Structure formats: C-alpha cells, structure tokens
C-alpha cells in the first residue's frame, strides 16, 4: 500500500500523506485501491494454502501435512478466496469505477466506505490467526469443517470455528455497508440524463449484487450465530437430541450461499460486455436484455438453494422443484451468452490482454455453466455430489468465471487508474499461462470425480494417482504464473508508456473522458448524458 497511484494529479485535493492518508481516507479511489490491494494479497494467501493441499495430493500417502491440518487448509482457502479475494476485488472496482462511470464526484457515503474497508483486515486476521495460535499450543488450529460450517462437525470443532464465525460476521457487516453505499450512490448520484436504463452495465450488475447481499448476508449471520449459541450456550438449533435438525443449517447456509455465487459473478457479467464492446469497436448488443437477465438471475438465485444438498434427503416434490428451478437459470444465462457473442459478431476485433482474458473467460465460464446444468439433475447429482466433479465445476465458475474476469478488468482499467500502459507482451504471456495451467489443473478433476474420488480427503486410493499428479503440477504452474500478474501490475504502477484519456480505441463511457489517471476528485463539473 505504499504506492500512491494518483499523487501527481492532486489539483485541489488536500489529504494527509503517508500511512494516515490510507487510514483516514474517504476518497473512493484510495479506498478502491486498498480493496484491490487487499484482494491481491489475500489471493496469494489463499493460493498458498491450496498449493499446500495440491502438494499433499501429488501422490497417494501422507507426505507433508496431517489430516487435521489438511481439513483446516481446505475450508480457510475457500473462505479467503470467496470473502477476502473475490468479493473485495469486485468492491474495489465498484469504488473506483462506479463514480467515474456515472459521473459522480465520489461515493455517496464516504465514511461508511472507509469503515467497510477497515473491517476486512481484522477479519482476515481472525480467519488465519488460529493457525499461528496452534503453533504456540493454543487451540487446535483453524476451522476444519470446510467453508460450509456444517454442524454437528462445526459444533464439535475447536476455537477455529469461533474465530471463523466472528470473521464471517465482520465480513458480512463490511459487505452490507459496501452494498448500502453502492445502492445509495446509484440511486442518487447519477449524472443528469443518465436514467437507470442508461446506466453502465457494470453499475447494473453491482446494483443487483448489492440487493442480493443486503437480502442474504443477514441469513448467514443468523445461521452462524445460531451455531455459536449451539456451541457455547446450550441451544439445540442443529441438534436432534434437543429437537433441532442439522440439515436446517444447510438450508440457512445455502439460502445465502447460492446467491453468493451470483454476488461474485454479477459484477463481472457487468464489465465483461463493456470490455467486449471496447475491443469489438461496436456498441454492446442487447443492453436491455442483459439488464433483464440480471434481474431474472437475481430473482432465481434466491429460490434454488437446496440443489447444493440434494443427497441430504428431502421430499420428492421438493427435489423436483429445486431441479427444475435450477435448470431455469440456464435461460437468462443463455440470453447473456448470446448477447456477448453477438457483440463480438461483425465487430472489428483486436486482442489485447483484457480481450484475451474476456474471450477465455466466456469459453471457460461456459464450461462451468454447462456442467452446472448437468449437476442440477437430482439422480446424477447423487454421483457428482461431494466428488471432485463438483470441485472442478465450481472452479470453472469461480476461478475462470470470477478471478479470470477480475483479471480482465484489471488489465482493462489499470491504464486508467495508473496513467501508464502495462507491458502488453507480458500481459499476454500471463493470460496463456493462466488459461492453459487452469485447464490442466481442473479438467483432470472432472475425471477424478466421475471415477469416484470424494472431495476433502487428504489421501486417496491408488487408482486416482495419475490425474492427481497432473492436477498438482498444473496447479503449481497456475500459482507461479500469478507472480507475473503482480509483476505486471507493479511495473505498470511505477511507469510505462503514458496512457491517453481514452486508453482504448473503442472505449465507451464517462470514465474514459477523464484524464488517466483521473484527478483525486473525479468530476469537478457534472457531466450530462444525452
């Protein structure tokens, strides 16, 4: 956080310097930068954990970690990647770009914004501290239940569970604060003439995300609080012995957990079409259709949760309902895929790094989506459930669909944020390394799942050896390739070819009318939109 990205353009912006600038800032760009930096750091923390796992799974037998520690790594990896890497990255972009895109000087609630960010580092510490404490003999390590906290295992667990519960509370508060800020900003601070249906698609994606967060985070907070009282205060919400039901927790958790998938993806679906229209040099196709698809997906996302635990047992009508409603998600998604490809169709395309990531993203996210359609089938799900097939599926949606989308956004907006062009050649190398090693990591996992390897096991039968070996080697290539990502970002911040205001030949939208980097306070005169 030592680099100031906007230092040379502070015309009439006075602010503290050094560490105080970052602690006290209410500026949307500074806060956005902090979110993005935090996200990048946590991306590596979560990545290091999973490389530990992949190293252990390189061959059958236990070599490096014991099963207790293995179970801690998988759950904390997921929580960090979801809550501390992917979500803050999307919020960081929202902070940076939403005011620029809608012609506002800043976010509507700047102090809330600052608070929202500064809740994140403590929660990251809460999540990882039990690892350190265990080294000093305090407690038995971090959450070892997987990221889903399923009781009774989580009631049985050690202090790591309590730490994770409080971390989730803080992360939840942070997300809700960020969401409120975005909703208020979008409803009140759009430039004159920018009606809701003229709002950039990224802002639309975030608006739906923000509403989903406000609707579902309290359910998660409630569920983990009930878990906390089950653990320490003798309640029996999830204990059959006292009239409770462990499966009720699954319902509550996934009522949050499924919308969460779209919370992570909607912002990406928002800016991907903006990248497509930029590099296709023609306006995006089907803006309205995409906005309506966002609505449809937002609505469907809160009524399909039980497809995450078909094997937990539920009445036949419920199984059928959740199966068919899940399949219905393919309708709005198909509309969006159609619009993306139609935007490219008969454009005048060029393939700079952001466009490469976007095209790769469409293909890989397509695989994630289609395997999701297959997973919706209850009968076949009995086989896929909790096998490596599911692991591969959700990494296609969340690594390819989430993180690779974020990377597209980073390369797309980095010149605007820093005022410098990144190294195009290295950007492309980064893309190809990421795309190839990602597929080599996760395609084998589809086959492992079909062959019958359950997820979350520290050691496995000999028949699974070859695919695990390929997956582990590729995972290390994937992890190490991300060092190049950091190198690209750092060199771009430090210097490089000056970026023009418009940066990209086909760029469209208000953010490209400002200088690169934009002044500390974005629009001193409010722009109008026709």
């Amino acid at each position, binding site marked *: 956080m030592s680099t100031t990205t906007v230092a040379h353009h502070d015309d009439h912006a006075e602010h503290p310097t050094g560490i105080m600038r970052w602690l006290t800032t209410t500026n949307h760009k500074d806060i956005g930068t902090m979110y993005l930096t935090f996200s990048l750091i946590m991306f590596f923390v979560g990545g290091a954990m999973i490389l530990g796992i992949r190293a252990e799974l390189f061959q059958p037998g236990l070599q490096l970690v014991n099963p207790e520690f293995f179970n801690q790594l998988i759950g904390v990896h997921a929580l960090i990647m979801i809550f501390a890497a992917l979500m803050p990255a999307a919020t960081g972009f929202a902070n940076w770009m939403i005011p620029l895109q809608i012609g506002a000087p800043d976010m509507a609630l700047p102090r809330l914004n600052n608070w929202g960010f500064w809740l994140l580092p403590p929660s990251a510490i809460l999540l990882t501290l039990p690892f350190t404490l265990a080294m000093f003999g305090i407690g038995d390590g971090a959450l070892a239940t997987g990221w889903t906290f399923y009781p*009774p295992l989580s009631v049985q667990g050690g202090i790591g569970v309590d730490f994770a519960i409080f971390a989730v509370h803080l992360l939840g508060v942070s997300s809700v604060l960020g969401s409120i800020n975005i909703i208020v900003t979008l409803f009140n601070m759009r430039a004159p003439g920018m009606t809701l249906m003229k709002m950039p698609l990224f802002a639309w994606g975030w608006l739906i995300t923000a509403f989903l967060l406000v609707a579902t985070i309290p359910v998660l907070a409630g569920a983990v609080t009930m878990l906390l009282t089950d653990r320490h205060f003798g309640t029996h919400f999830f204990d059959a012995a006292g009239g409770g039901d462990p499966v009720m927790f699954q319902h509550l958790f996934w009522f949050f957990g499924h919308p969460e998938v779209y919370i992570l993806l909607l912002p990406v679906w928002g800016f991907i079409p903006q990248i497509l229209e930029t590099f296709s040099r023609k306006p995006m196709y089907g803006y309205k259709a995409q906005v309506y698809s966002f609505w449809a997906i937002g609505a469907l996302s809160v009524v399909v949760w039980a497809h995450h635990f078909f094997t937990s047992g539920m009445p036949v009508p419920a199984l059928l309902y959740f199966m068919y409603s899940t399949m219905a998600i393919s309708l709005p998604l198909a509309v969006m895929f159609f619009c993306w490809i139609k935007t490219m169709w008969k454009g005048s395309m060029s393939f700079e790094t952001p466009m490469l990531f976007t095209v790769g993203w469409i293909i890989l996210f397509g695989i994630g989506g289609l395997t999701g359609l297959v997973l919706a089938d209850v009968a076949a799900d*009995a086989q896929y459930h909790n096998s490596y097939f599911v692991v591969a599926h959700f990494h296609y949606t969340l690594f390819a669909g989430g993180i690779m989308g974020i990377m597209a956004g980073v390369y797309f907006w980095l010149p605007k944020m820093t005022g410098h062009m990144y190294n195009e050649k290295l950007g492309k190398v980064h893309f190809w390394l990421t795309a190839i090693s990602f597929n080599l990591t996760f395609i084998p996992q589809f086959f492992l799942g079909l062959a019958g390897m359950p997820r979350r096991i520290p050691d496995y039968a000999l028949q699974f050896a070859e695919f695990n070996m390929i997956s582990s080697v590729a995972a290390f290539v994937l992890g190490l390739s991300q060092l190049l990502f950091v190198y690209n970002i750092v060199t771009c911040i430090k210097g490089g070819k000056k970026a023009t205001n418009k940066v990209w030949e086909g760029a469209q939208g208000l953010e490209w009318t400002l200088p690169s980097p934009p002044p500390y306070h974005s629009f001193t005169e409010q722009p109008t939109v026709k």
Partner: protein
Amino acid sequence: MRGFTKVSLALSAMLASISAQADYAWNFPEPVTPMALDTLHVHNKFMLITMVIFFVVLAIMIYSIFAHRKSKNFKAVADKAPSTAMEIFWTLVPFAILLLIDFVIMGIPAYHSVIMMEDTRDKATMVVKVTGSQWRWQYEYMDGDAKGIKFVSNLSTPKEQTDKGYQGKKDEQYLLEVDNHLVLPVGEKVRILMTATDVMHNWWVPQFGSSRLAVPGFLRETWVQVDKAGTYRGQCKELCGKGHGYMPVVVDAVPMEEYKAWVVAKKEEMAKASAGADKEWTKDELVAEGKGVYEKNCAVCHQITGAGLPPAFPALTGSKIATGPIFGADGKYLKDGHLDRVLNGIRVMPGWKALLNDTEIAAVITYERNALGNSVGDVLQPAQVKAARQ
C-alpha cells in the same frame, strides 16, 4: 488464432498421454444396480447435449474471432434494430429450444430417475441399517433370517501404510479395504436405512449410484439392488473430521445360497462372542484381546502409544480417568470414570456402547489400564460391562 491452436495442441497432448494408462476411467465406473445404470444413461445423455451446445457456440465464436478482426481490416457493422415482429420471433425461438432441452429432453428422464431413486420400499425384500460414526460404519440386518446380525466395519489398510512419510509399497486396495464386509444377496432390492451417531456421513459406493446423507438423530433412506456378484468399494462422502478419508465402504454381493450360508456362519460367530461375555477372563487374555480393539478403534486419536494428540485428544498414559477407579462404593460405575467415558463418550469422543460388545469393552479398558505405560493392575470382566449396561 495461434493461441487457440496452442491450447488445443497442449490439451490433446495431455489427453493422449493419459489415455496411454489403459485402465483409467473416463466416465462413471461400471454400473451394477438399476439406479447406477439409469444415472449413467442420464449422465451420458446430458453430457452429450451440453457438449453439442458448447461446441456449436464455440465454433460460432471462433469463426467470428478469425473473421471479424481489425488486423484483417474488417470494419465493424453496427447491429440494426430489428422490427418488432422479428424481435419477438428471434426471442421466442431460442427460448422454445432451451425450454425443450431443459424441461423435455433433459427434464423428463430426470423426473423418472428421481421417482426411481426415491422409491425405497416397493419390492424391497430386506432392510439393512447403516450407521456412520467417526470413522467407521456399522451394519445391522433388520429383518429375515439375518435379523440381529450387527457388526462394525473398520479400515483394515495397515496403519504404517497410512502414516505420514511412509515410502514403501502400498496394498492394491489401499484405503479401500475393511475388516468386515457388508454382505448382500445378488438381485434383491435392499432398503437401506441411514443414520449417524456423531456428525454427518455419507455412505457411497460409486458403482451403486446411490448416496444419501447419514444425519445423527434422523433416519434417511435409500436402496440398492446389486445385479452382479462381486466386491464393490466406496468411501464416506461427507467431511466428518480428521478420519474422513479413512472410512471406506466395502460390499460383497453374493448369490442367494452363499448369502444364506454367510448368515448362518455369522450368527454362530456372534453366539460364540456373547458366550465369551459370561466366562471369567484372565488379565493377560483381556490385555491381549484389548490391544487389537484399541489399535483398531482408539489409536486414531489417542495414538498407538497412548500419548494422544493434546489438546484435542488427551493422552491415556498417566490419565486420571484411565488410572482412577471405575466403580463407586455403591457398585455402580462412576460418572466420568473410565467405563462411563468408554460407554458414553464426551464431546468429540464417541460413545462405544453401540459399537463394541461387552468383551471388547472390558478388554480395551483392561488394556488401557495395564498397558500404554499404565499399570493399575485391576481387571474389568465382560460380565461387569454387561451388568453396567442394564
């Protein structure tokens, strides 16, 4: 585009190198139940549909990527707004196709599969109760000749092979072998009742196509009908703690006559064991018997040496409970005494009442008190355990 060629080359090179491993599985393992067969058909059909969609869309996109590029001087052609009639037509047709794929081509077979999967009772000829606990399965036959047969099934891969850092040769069925197989007759529809004693588990044999969560305090059900004799292996599929990867499921499907013979043999074996509970055992006999019970059931947490893994799993060597008195002055076992702890468990420690018989409990307690660095010197007789259960 050069990049895509590179990716596809890399992918096909990878696929070619793996398919050289002849016995490698690319799909579900061979199905042996009607449910698994149905699942395989549904899976193949769905995969085919989604792959066709994927490659058609991909082909259109790749064509566009090659044809509509700036480097080829292709000038962008703006999308013209269609007439309302055309717009409605072009919206409804793809929607109709998708609805057809989702809810007819995929939806109808999926419906029948669900109905078949959930019908656990029709034509079921026997009932087996499966109980998951950390980290073993317990099987109980609920009706017919086999009624009353009840046993625990533990991982039997030698412990040194699963230890950290083991470099030697591993068994062929590494992590997939147990001491007592579940035995089922071929061709009979077996209703499976599922429950758990501590946390959730999931009893899963890939070749059976059924999997159902075992929830403590509730009964869930599923069914299997194995149509081909053989030994089938699977694993627990719900994260259940540190031993999650070490509780395999092994089922022998045998012809009816063989099954009947097995039932008779198993009943005799159980009668012998319960007769053993009434005789007076010597300390050495109990310690020798208890060593086996301990290493199979207790060592995973308390360790072979009795040193435990504090703070989660306390040491037994020198432990207050394992060296303190078992019975109070009134002749009843003490609360929080050694026998109470083994029978009923506490927090993470499971109760063993339902899992071990009287002899096994007496033996393991005697072993813990007179080995593992302890030397209390007393003996707990199976008859005392039997009385304590009343």
